[in-house]
């Protein structure tokens, strides 16, 4: 019996419909919701993400290059190819170079006389360096020094003994700051990139121009060519680009100032 009943139950179970309706509807609903969601997302996205600026395919290659230094701002570290210029002050006379230490062989037996000689040599090297520390004021200085107090012109010594000494030819001594201003303005205005790179280093072109009372440069012309047309032209352009060097100092009597300026590649 029990086997039959079991068999009946089995039969019933086999004949009974499989409960797929609920999962099927669930699945249908889920897919419907997914599809609806995608459509809705597209609609809402299209509604809100209204890209007025068209496609994003506007890009292409991107130029990587730098702007020239023509901003009216000082350049803290001017470009300098001169190998003679150093960051550190050199001392004159140059301190003796420390002798290279002889390679010490650990296995070698120490010879009494030799080791003493080496020590004496080391002492001799140190002594001149100590003497250098209080720097004599009258010696020549090379290399970088802090806050140079150098006169801008030798004319200052003989030409001006107070406000009465207003002669011709002492502009640079009386208005050194204005000359510095000309240099500063020209170095930001001159674009070295315009010069042909085959120009030999150190080539100089000399310009002559006139600065009027309001500071505007006029009559820019090449005085002595450097031999490189691009260098000549770039220097002339640099001077022509300057709108004004600033009004001439009020204490300066003449109406114009002649300037001879060189650009060195």
């Amino acid at each position, binding site marked *: 019996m029990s086997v039959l009943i079991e068999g009946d139950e089995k039969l019933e179970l086999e004949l009974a419909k499989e409960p797929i309706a609920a999962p099927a509807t669930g699945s249908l609903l889920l897919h419907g919701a997914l599809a609806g969601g995608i459509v809705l997302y597209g609609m809402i996205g299209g509604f809100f993400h209204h890209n*007025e*600026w*068209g*496609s*994003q395919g*506007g*890009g*292409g290659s*991107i130029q990587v290059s*730098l*702007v*020239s230094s*023509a*901003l*009216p*701002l*000082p350049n803290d570290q*001017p470009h300098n190819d001169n190998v*003679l*210029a150093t*960051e550190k002050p050199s001392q004159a006379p140059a301190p003796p170079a420390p002798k290279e230490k002889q390679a010490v062989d650990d296995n070698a037996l120490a010879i009494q006389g030799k080791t003493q000689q080496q020590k004496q040599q080391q002492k001799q090297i140190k002594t001149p360096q100590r003497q250098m520390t209080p720097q004599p004021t009258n010696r020549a200085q*090379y*290399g*970088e*020094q*802090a*806050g*140079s107090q*150098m006169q801008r*012109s*030798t004319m200052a010594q003989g030409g*001006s003994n107070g406000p009465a000494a207003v002669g*011709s*030819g*002492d*502009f*640079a*001594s*009386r*208005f*050194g*700051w204005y*000359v510095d*201003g000309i*240099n*500063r303005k*020209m*170095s*930001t205005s001159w674009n070295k990139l315009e010069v042909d790179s085959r120009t030999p280093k150190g080539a*100089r072109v000399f310009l002559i121009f006139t600065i009027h009372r309001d*500071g505007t440069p006029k009559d820019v012309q090449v005085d002595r060519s450097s031999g490189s047309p691009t260098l000549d032209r770039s220097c002339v352009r640099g001077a022509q680009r300057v709108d*004004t*060097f*600033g009004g001439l100092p009020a204490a300066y009597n*003449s109406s*114009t*100032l002649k*300037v*001879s300026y060189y*650009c060195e590649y």
Partner: protein
Amino acid sequence: MKAFFRFSPLFALILAGMTATTVAAQDWVHTGTNLGSERIRLAAADFKPVGGDPQTPALKAVFDATLYSDLANAGIFDLVSKSMAPQATPGSPQEINLGQWSAAPSNAAMVALGALSASNGRLSVYGWLEDARNTANPQVLAQQYNEQASQEMARTVAHRFADLIILRLGGGINGIAETKIYFVSSRTGTKEIWAMDYDGQNQHQVTHLGSVSISPRVSPDNTRIAFSSLSGQGWSIRMYSLELGRLVSFPAGTAGGSNLSPAWSGDGKKIAFSSSRSGDSEIWVADASGGNLHRVTSFKGPNVAPTWNPKTNAQLAWASGRTGLPQISTMDQDGANVQRMTDGGYAISPSWAPNGQFLTFSWNRKYGPGAPGGQDIYLMDISNLHWLQLTHESGSNDFPSWAPDGRHIVFERASGRHAEIWTMLADGTEQHQLTHSGNNYMPNWSWK
């Protein structure tokens, strides 16, 4: 390195001295390149208080602080720190020992000094600028001021003296210490136009419209502000008179469609703006009175944010969407000679430098989903399209605007939903935040 080069002008100037003695009418100067592009080492001495008026110490403190910060902000000086300067407060050129200032640790090439006194409600200031290295003829500048004794006036006098020093030593470019910055602020709840001094001081509200007002542009003579404002007819260009303290009419800016981003020409005679009254946003130009309106561009896609070349007043730059994403373009004022300046990405908000040589704008060079990089301020030389990135990896930067000296740029920096006004030198250094309260947008630097 610097001193090495100073030897060459010495010889040049000896030459100058020898040749020039024969010339009577004018002097000769012989000089050359690589001789002086470093910053001028300048010391600002504390001014000497004179007299026993109780107002003097407070005014002196304001004056000293303002003068120091103006000179430090100028961008052309290496300013001697107050702690390195000599202890003495010289009140006149007779009292100063220049050797003390030109020696270490201050190493000053120039010293600004003077005396300040208040009496009977008047503030009197004597200021000098001395060349510390030229002991024979040190005086560069001597100036006297006599104004009403107030904190505001002490600040103004310090601004004027600083501007004079900057003009004299900065190669004839006027200082910006007395300029203003106009901007949008929502700190009262609605977006209104505000104004402040160039250093962020003295912030005050200009318009009280209770609507939304954006993109202020002050006229070159500092009398009017053009801006766009939301009204019943949509966005319209409106004009606010700073002299009358109220809105004045600008009929060209009120027609249908969105009228946005006005821009004054350098002579103050014309205003360019973008308007969508004919469909797409296009650039339109009108007289400053609002008459003689005409359309300049007719491209597919939006064309917005015009800016004039203030040097020539004959060219416009703007953000054009005619090739897809917005790019900076330039054209003549009649719409001819269109040139695209940027070659990709997303470039907006151009501003043309006072010398006509540079454009600054906001650029996202790698725009798109998943692309790294942010909206940064860039500088471009319009003659060769070479560019320089000024801001790096700090928020989203937009709306740059040139200062009249061509050395400073003010811009909006947003991080998250918070936007503030910042300023920097035109090489991207010395970035400072100017506003600290509420949200502040779209700065515009006045012309003088």
